[in-house]
């Protein structure tokens, strides 16, 4: 018999089977477009495609590609942890309510959905890795280890956001999450230019936010320059955010579903 904690995944899997084509093609074409325009197009201007000391000794394509890898995990996670989580406790889906009537516990509902989001982040990152490798942006086989960074980054964003979404009455605030949280993080976390270019105050803000850690981690794995001390620091930071998020999410789910 399927163990109870895995049972919520049946729902997400069956729903996914309906839309996998559009999801996978989006996960394939979006990085293709980004890498072609930013990596190759813009990259031909930045240092004329040459390696630059200011980019850590990389050419622009190799600098930006791992950052987009981390950004992909973040984007998938935020999209899933807002509208999807919110929808799952609303009448047209009823997903959480029906799980609740079964032997599945509230904590397992939360854990199941987070596991699914982590899996979606992994899938998107795997596709991205393949596309970026085809562009020649992957310099080291260590990049394969970066596949673990995808779900970890995904959870660091998904868990705290899900804690918020599950209790949200309306879905309007989610567009603010995209504009005021996701977009600035995506643009200023050392993704398109090094954080050393930021004013000092903003630089420390970037260090404090999760995406920068995910970007640094991915970059070192793509380039094969992973250093155990700095690297594990990033991992611990992301794991701590994800762990704290899961604890808060657990309480939020209980508050919303077990009244």
């Amino acid at each position: 018999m399927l163990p109870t904690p895995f049972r919520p995944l049946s729902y997400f899997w069956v729903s996914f089977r309906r839309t996998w084509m559009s999801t996978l093609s989006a996960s394939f074409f979006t990085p293709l477009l980004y890498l072609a325009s930013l990596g190759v197009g813009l990259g031909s201007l930045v240092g004329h495609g040459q390696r630059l000391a200011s980019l850590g000794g990389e050419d622009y394509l190799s600098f930006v590609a791992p950052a987009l890898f981390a950004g992909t995990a973040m984007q998938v996670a935020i999209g899933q942890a807002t509208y999807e989580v919110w929808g799952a406790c609303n009448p047209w889906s009823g997903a959480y309510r029906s799980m609740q009537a079964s032997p599945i516990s509230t904590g397992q509902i939360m854990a199941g959905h987070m596991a699914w989001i982590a899996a979606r982040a992994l899938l998107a990152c795997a596709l991205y890795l393949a596309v970026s490798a085809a562009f020649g942006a992957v310099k080291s086989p260590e990049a394969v280890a970066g596949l673990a960074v995808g779900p970890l980054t995904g959870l660091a964003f998904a868990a705290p956001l899900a804690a918020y979404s599950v209790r949200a009455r309306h879905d309007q605030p989610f567009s603010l999450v995209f504009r005021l949280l996701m977009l600035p993080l995506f643009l200023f976390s050392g993704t398109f230019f090094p954080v050393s270019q930021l004013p000092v105050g903003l630089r420390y803000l970037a260090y404090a936010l999760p995406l920068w850690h995910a970007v640094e981690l991915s970059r070192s794995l793509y380039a094969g320059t992973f250093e155990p001390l700095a690297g594990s620091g990033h991992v611990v930071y992301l794991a701590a955010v994800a762990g704290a998020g899961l604890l808060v999410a657990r309480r939020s789910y209980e508050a919303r579903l077990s009244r």
Partner: protein
Amino acid sequence: MTTSTRVSARRLTKRFGDFTAVDGIDFEVRAGEVFGFLGPNGAGKSSTMRMVGATSDRSGGELSVLGLDPSHHGTQIRSRLGVVPQEDNLDLELSVSDNLYVYGRYFGLPRRQLRGRIAELLEFAQLSERAADKVDNLSGGMKRRLTIARGLINEPELVLLDEPTTGLDPQARHLLWDRLYSLKQDGVTLVLTTHYMDEAEQLCDRLVVMDKGRIIAAGSPRELVDRYVTKEVVELRFPAGQARRAAPRTDGLARRVEVIADRLLLYTDDGDATAEHVASSTLQPVSTLVRRASLEDVFLSLTGRQLDD
């Protein structure tokens, strides 16, 4: 509690902040019966159902479901229950059979076993032809039947139905009652809530009448009518605004008189005789109707209000 008891509650209470939704109720559901909670919206019926269904913790009192305490054995209880919530919680984007499949997986049923079970349930719900359709395209009655079928996926010993026919047209309701009756024939214990007195009369072996979080009466539909109201009722309809003014002139015509909007209800043991007295009086109603007393009259006599107020 005996072995034939499926649910037993003592001083069961549910509070939301300062509001007491369920205020210390006692009841017992026996194996194989259809047990009803009758009452208006907000009486505490749904809160009671959610506690019995082990999805909401009680705030006080004792509760035993299938011999287990829902606070400690929620998972075990839910695995043996069928739950049909007030609002259909089907997934509108998925097909009819996928809704059953996914729900079956929540109960850990293996794929192969599910295939046969889904076919049976589609048959039961008379939805075999619609198996591949998106749920969004079904009518209200079909969605309700699917929700009920889904609640049966784990072959539950006890099925909880919260307002099973609210919002359905009469034909769809009768079809549903027929399905529920066939479940009872199979020995399944049913607990349902309703604010329709005809539903309670049709289906329930025993019921409790709830109002403002309390149980105000308990018994079989017949017992309740016998205990709280007379055998028959004479309904007199008056032009707008005149019923109340006519009320004093019914003195001596009936055991008790209730005023509802433009109607006077005269409670009497012999309806025809009372109707004749009315005809020869100065009352002059627009119309006169003699009928048997119902649970609606029980509720009215206990609370002074109508069920669907």
